[in-house]
C-alpha cells in the first residue's frame, strides 16, 4: 500500500510549482492558471487525509473549494477582459498605474 506521505509530497510539489509559475510568469492569464494549480494541489491533500482518517468531510471541503474556484475564475476572467479593453495588454509589468 502506498504511504499517505507520497500523496502529500506530490501535493507539495504541485503547490510549489504553482507558486513558482505565479512568480515567474508575466502573462496575467497564466498567473491565473497557476492559482488554479495551487488550489488543485490543496484539494489532493484534502482527499488524501479524508482517506486516511476514514472521514468524508474532506470531500465536502474539496467541493467548496471547487465552487469558490469556479466563482473566482468567472470574476477574474471578467477583470482580465476589462483590463485588456482599457490597457490593450496582458503583461502584468505594463499594468502599473498604481505604482509610485
Amino acid at each position, binding site marked *: 500500500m502506498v504511504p499517505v506521505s507520497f500523496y502529500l509530497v506530490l501535493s507539495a510539489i504541485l503547490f510549489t510549482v504553482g507558486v513558482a509559475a505565479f512568480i*515567474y510568469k508575466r502573462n496575467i492569464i497564466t498567473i491565473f492558471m497557476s492559482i488554479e494549480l495551487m488550489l488543485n494541489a490543496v484539494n489532493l491533500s484534502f482527499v488524501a487525509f479524508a482517506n486516511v482518517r476514514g472521514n468524508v468531510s474532506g470531500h465536502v471541503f474539496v467541493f467548496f473549494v471547487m465552487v469558490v474556484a469556479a466563482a473566482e475564475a468567472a470574476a477574474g476572467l471578467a477583470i482580465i477582459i476589462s483590463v485588456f479593453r482599457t490597457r490593450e495588454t496582458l503583461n502584468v509589468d505594463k499594468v502599473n498605474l498604481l505604482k509610485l
Partner: protein
Amino acid sequence: MVHYALFFIFAIVCVGGALNLLLQKHPIQSALSLIVVMGSLAALYLMLGAEFVAAVQVIVYAGAIMVLFVFVIMLLNAGEEEHTKGSRIAMFFGVPAVAGLVGMVVYTLTHSVERDIRLGNFPADTTHTISMLLFRDYLLPFEITSVLVLIAIMGAVVLAGKEKH
C-alpha cells in the same frame, strides 16, 4: 504493487504537466498542460476512493473552468509572453527558493505521517454520505456559496459588459 505503479504513473504525468505549464511560452499550451494535470489528479482521486470528487474534478475543473480559460485566451488573442527584467530576477532567486521549499516540505511530511492509504477505505456509498453531510451538517456554508456564485455572476456581467458612453 499495482497501487504503486498507478500512483507513480499518474504522479509523473501530473508533475510533468505542471512543469510544462511553467516552461511553455504560449498561454494556450499552458492551459492544455493544466488540463493534463487535472485529468491525472482525477485518476488519483479515484485511487483514493473519492469517485464523486473525481467526477466533479473532470466535469467542473477540466470541463467548465478550463473551457472558460481557453475561451478567454482565444477571445483576447493572447500571444507569446515577453520576459522582462523582473521575471529574470524572479527566476534567479525563485528557483533556489522553490527548491529549498520543496525540500523542507518533503522532509516535514515524510517524517510526520506514517499511515498507509488503503484502497476501499470508504463505505460503498460515498456519494450518499457526502450528500447527507452537505445538506445537513454543512447546509449553511452550502447556501452561502450559492450567494457567492450569484455575486460572482453579477460581477462578471458588470465587469465584462459593454461600457456605456
